[in-house]
């Protein structure tokens, strides 16, 4: 880890002291949670090159399993752990049959998966509470420590995110990360070298699902309320937009994209429906003019300055 990164994390730890008011810290906390899910999406889409619009569905599974477990009396961390296992299982169930598919077909299969999860959350009322969701979920905590304030949540979530970033960086530099990128770049060539590309894609999807479930489970414990609409297709598209805005395949990009697209709708709340028009137009503009996202654009700018 480079020194400027450490400084960055240290500055981030001070953020709640600078923001002061509760609302701003709440938005910041949500940005951390989104960043976790986007970081997961980066494994499967950024590295392994596979479209995944099921990320919100995995987050929903994580949130509901955590909520149900904690409400049933399990310690929070144990409920969260169970959620990660269930989400990993769901990713296998989705990925095994569908990861052979390419581009549009995989996109449709994952959208279908997201829709099915959403419909189950909405209609399995005896368990999920239907459209009114689950309330009074026990807060994030381990042992006797329980997260009480938004600032405490920030520190806990930041620590989790830091760990998640560390793991993502390790994976990226490992054999597995190189295998994912080889699969994305030239799947047939990669498989000719003896690489089991289907297995690589499955592991990438599983990592994505576990990150999403971690994000969803912590969301359930932080907001202490979950409802189906928080995990619908709109959220899946939003997570995807965050990845593309920041820079597909870049860990720093994931964090930037999540931060920008979490704060922007709050800051531009006065625009109402116009915000969504602006958001759509912004996504189109990013794809057209900055397809490698903020990080890619910054890198190109840096290179030009360095050369010139």
């Amino acid at each position: 880890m480079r020194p400027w990164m450490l400084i960055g994390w240290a500055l981030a730890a001070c953020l709640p002291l600078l923001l002061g008011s509760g609302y701003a810290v709440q938005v910041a906390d949500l940005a951390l949670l989104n960043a976790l899910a986007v970081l997961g999406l980066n494994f499967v889409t950024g590295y392994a090159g596979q479209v995944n619009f099921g990320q919100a569905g995995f987050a929903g599974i994580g949130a509901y399993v955590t909520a149900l477990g904690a409400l049933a009396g399990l310690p929070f961390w144990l409920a969260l752990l169970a959620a990660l296992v269930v989400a990993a299982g769901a990713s296998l169930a989705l990925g095994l049959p569908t990861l052979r598919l390419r581009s549009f077909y995989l996109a449709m299969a994952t959208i279908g998966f997201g829709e099915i999860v959403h419909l189950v959350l909405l209609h399995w009322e005896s368990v999920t509470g239907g459209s009114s969701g689950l309330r009074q979920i026990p807060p994030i905590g381990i042992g006797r420590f329980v997260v009480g304030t938004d600032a405490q949540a920030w520190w806990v979530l930041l620590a989790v995110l830091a760990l998640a970033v560390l793991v993502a960086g390790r994976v990226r530099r490992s054999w597995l990360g190189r295998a994912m990128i080889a699969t994305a770049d030239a799947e047939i060539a990669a498989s000719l070298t003896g690489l089991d590309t289907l297995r690589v894609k499955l592991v990438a999807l599983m990592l994505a699902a576990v990150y999403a479930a971690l994000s969803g489970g912590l969301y359930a414990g932080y907001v202490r309320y979950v409802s189906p609409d928080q995990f619908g297709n709109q959220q899946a598209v939003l997570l995807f937009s965050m990845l593309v805005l920041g820079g597909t395949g870049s860990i720093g990009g994931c964090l930037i994209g999540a931060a920008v697209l979490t704060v922007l709708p709050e800051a531009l709340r006065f625009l109402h429906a116009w915000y969504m028009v602006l958001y759509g137009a912004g996504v189109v503009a990013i794809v057209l003019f900055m397809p490698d996202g903020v990080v890619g654009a910054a890198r190109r700018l840096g290179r030009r300055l360095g050369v010139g």
Partner: protein
Amino acid sequence: MPQLVVSGLTLGAVYALVALGLLLIFSAARVVNFAQGQLLMIGAYLAIAAQVRHGLPAWAAYGLTLAAMALLGVVFMLVAWRPLRGRPTHLVILTTIAMGIILENLALIVWGPLPVSLPAPLVGRPWRVAGGVITMQQMFVMGTTMLALVALSLFMTRSRFGVLMRATAQDLDMARLVGIRVDRTIAAAFAIGSGLAGLAGLLVAPLYLAEPTMGGSLGLKGFVVAVVGGFGNLPGAVVGGLGLGLIEAFAARYVSAEYRDAVAFIIMIAMLCVRPRGLFGETVGERV
């Protein structure tokens, strides 16, 4: 029971039209348009605006709607497809989704969130057939879908333009090399595809109400149908559409009304796993 068949086939015909539009765009541009449902919604609102707000007769309102939708299709192609050639698929997919978000929220701003209705163009007594009742509008929807299928099939196989379109789909660079004006061909495909979405919109608006969010679910059903029928197989799309409409109607009645939408997605995922080329295979882009 016969009533279920009628309502299932009617909605199925709308699914089929959405799928036909998707196929046409896919067959030329090799892009799945994830905003097809939102184009449908715009078509429904344009027909309502022309007929209800401005008092045009139905035939004029429909003609104007289709023309406007064709134009919108060309704009769509210029903004969301042409500059993206060669970009990774996930960016192309995201762009069409973003176009859908823009259309949906513009509709929300212009026409408001409340559902509005379009009067049915044909008035007449419902028919009684084998214990069921078919309204004029239901007949109109099914008849128009069949006509659209026949016209499109003839267009794709018999007309010069249809052949050019299929050639472009097969190999864009080769098509350009032999002198096909690729952009013009693909713009035409988008115009027809968007027009078909508009047609579906103005047909569905008198049956159900129009609202800005109506496109999401109808668009997704269109994909399911396109996948089941085989991406690129025109009759397959119509058979798939009618089939899905029927299955949904019966599933809602005999299995669970709440999970009727889930049925479609389960069928699609199962189909993608077992026969990703669809029941009838992909034909439009295959042979010229």
